[in-house]
């Protein structure tokens, strides 16, 4: 559609009702309206991404000679990262964290809750939902301290409840603690998404399956799952992306003890900003951006395919 003329009405033959330049903005005016947002996005989102790629190819450091005159070292940083024990170690931990807490934990518990509570209305359901949501919306600094207190070696509530005095959970089982923590933190999203998805499964089909003698498991597999497959994929991709980029574990363990919880975001922080190796840190960021890109592109294609199917 071309620019609408600035005459009153701004209506032109061929302009559909959904796209009518009702305010007589014109192309120039529209551009002027879009520019502030685009400038901000370009400066603080697009440019940093491109700059990461450039920095990743230099030996840039926070201090010293390389800080004044960084040299281009090409793919050296990326190669170094892929060879670096710290990097592979961190990648393995990240994988554990994402798979354990998001893909298995949050999605599993979220679905279980949505399924179990699907025809309940009442105080019990509201109470559970409220607590699950509360865990999701509270600020991460507060949540982190609550868990440090909960898992404390000497006076932690968990040790009191389990009668396991003196267990320092964050030191003895750091990764497990973080995984359980993140399940607690993020299940709300999966629960809500699956609750919405289950609302779309026609009750009559479930009824038919039940009358035909299908067990709960068979109903899930044959009736429910085929209908919510799209939601499951959406959910898994989004929570993986978010968990992969989550910095909250830093607030609980700071990457320690030793480097046993040094997931990717913490590793980058320690290397680039704490250790001052900005070039190497940027190369790590590039790898992280690439992984994000893969997840996001898969997600975008999925959405488009679903949109096409709906048409």
């Amino acid at each position, binding site marked *: 559609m071309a620019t609408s003329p600035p005459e009153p009405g701004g209506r032109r033959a061929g302009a559909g009702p959904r796209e009518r330049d*009702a305010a007589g903005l014109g192309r120039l005016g529209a551009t002027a*309206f879009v520019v502030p947002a685009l400038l901000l996005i370009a400066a603080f989102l697009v440019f940093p991404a491109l700059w990461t790629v450039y920095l990743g190819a230099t030996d840039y450091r926070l201090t010293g000679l390389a800080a004044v005159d960084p040299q281009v070292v090409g793919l050296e940083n990326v190669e170094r990262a892929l060879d670096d024990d710290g990097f592979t170690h961190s990648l393995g931990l990240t994988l554990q964290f994402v798979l354990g807490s998001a893909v298995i934990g949050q999605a599993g518990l979220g679905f279980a809750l949505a399924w179990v509570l699907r025809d309940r209305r009442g105080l019990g359901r509201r109470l559970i939902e409220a607590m699950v949501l509360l865990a999701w919306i509270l*600020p991460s600094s507060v949540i982190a301290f609550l868990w440090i207190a909960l898992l404390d070696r000497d*006076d932690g509530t968990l040790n009191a409840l389990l009668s396991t005095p003196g267990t320092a959970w964050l030191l003895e089982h750091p990764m497990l603690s973080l995984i359980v923590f993140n399940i607690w933190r993020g299940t709300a999203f999966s629960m809500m998404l699956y*609750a919405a998805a289950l609302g779309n499964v026609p009750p009559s089909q479930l009824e038919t399956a039940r009358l035909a003698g299908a067990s709960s498991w068979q109903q899930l597999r044959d009736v429910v799952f085929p209908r919510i497959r799209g939601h499951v994929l959406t959910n898994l991709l989004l929570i993986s992306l978010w968990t992969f*980029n989550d*910095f909250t574990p830093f607030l609980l363990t700071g990457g320690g003890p030793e480097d046993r919880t040094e997931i990717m975001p913490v590793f980058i922080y320690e290397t680039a900003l704490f250790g001052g190796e900005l070039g190497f840190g940027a190369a790590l960021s590039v790898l992280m*951006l690439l992984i994000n890109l893969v997840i996001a592109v898969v997600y975008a294609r999925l959405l488009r395919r679903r949109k096409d199917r709906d048409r």
Partner: protein
Amino acid sequence: MTPPPATPPEATREDRHAAGLDGARRLLATVGFYTFCSLVLAFFTVPLLWLASAPFDDTPSITASLPSFTLANFETLLDNRYAMRSLGNSAVLALGTGALVVVCAALAAYALSRVRLPGRDALLYALLLLSSIVTGTAAMVPLFNLAFELDLIDSQLGVILVLSGGLLPSAVFILKDFMDGTPRSYEESAQVFGASPLQVLRHVVVPLVRPGLATIAVWAVAQVWGNFLIPFLLLRSPEKSPAAVVMYTFYTEGGQPDLALISTFSLLYSVPVVLMFLLVSSRYGFRFHGGIKR
């Protein structure tokens, strides 16, 4: 659940046996259901107990326990210079970002909704994709460099700009949806009476999409209020730091943590988020808005 199968009077023994099994299975399912729900409820509630009990306990400890009630802890909080100031800083950052995001996104969304600029849809999708890829965590190195080069280290404006850049794509995308759904006829009449596009937007469109603007504003404010990483990276002086960062220093700086301070501060810092959430859910029926939380 399933209504109990009516056992006909001429039921054979097997039938009755089957009905008994069925009943046992249903009992087991009920027991399982309540066990599961209680465990889940305990799992989600126990970590939060401390936040409810410790602020009002006269000798707060790490363990969650029934408090011997007092409000004295809040005096410790009010006496701490950094604590109250940091909440103010959080408000400045959150409201600043919220205002910037709402204004820029409303302008852009309106223009994109009413005028088909070349490559509009591709642009929107590309930006949305980009905003989910270039997260603060993945881009912390260049963001730090950028702030350094622009002399925005230790500046609240820097934090506001960086956060706005990250939130804008989703905000534009969601607001455009809202704007697409509003009728055009009012705008046309306003234009007949000689209103400029900016006036039309302010006096005609904004009142119509107010729920959308409010949702975006609350969402942006909540995102910034809880954000730790960006202010942690970009701000240096404690006087400028928001509550998220100050809270972290309260319990990581050596020595015995002041639990009276930490607990009351956590509570005060958490309350606005809960209020905002309740507001949105009661006002606009927050059930599910896709990926509204980044």
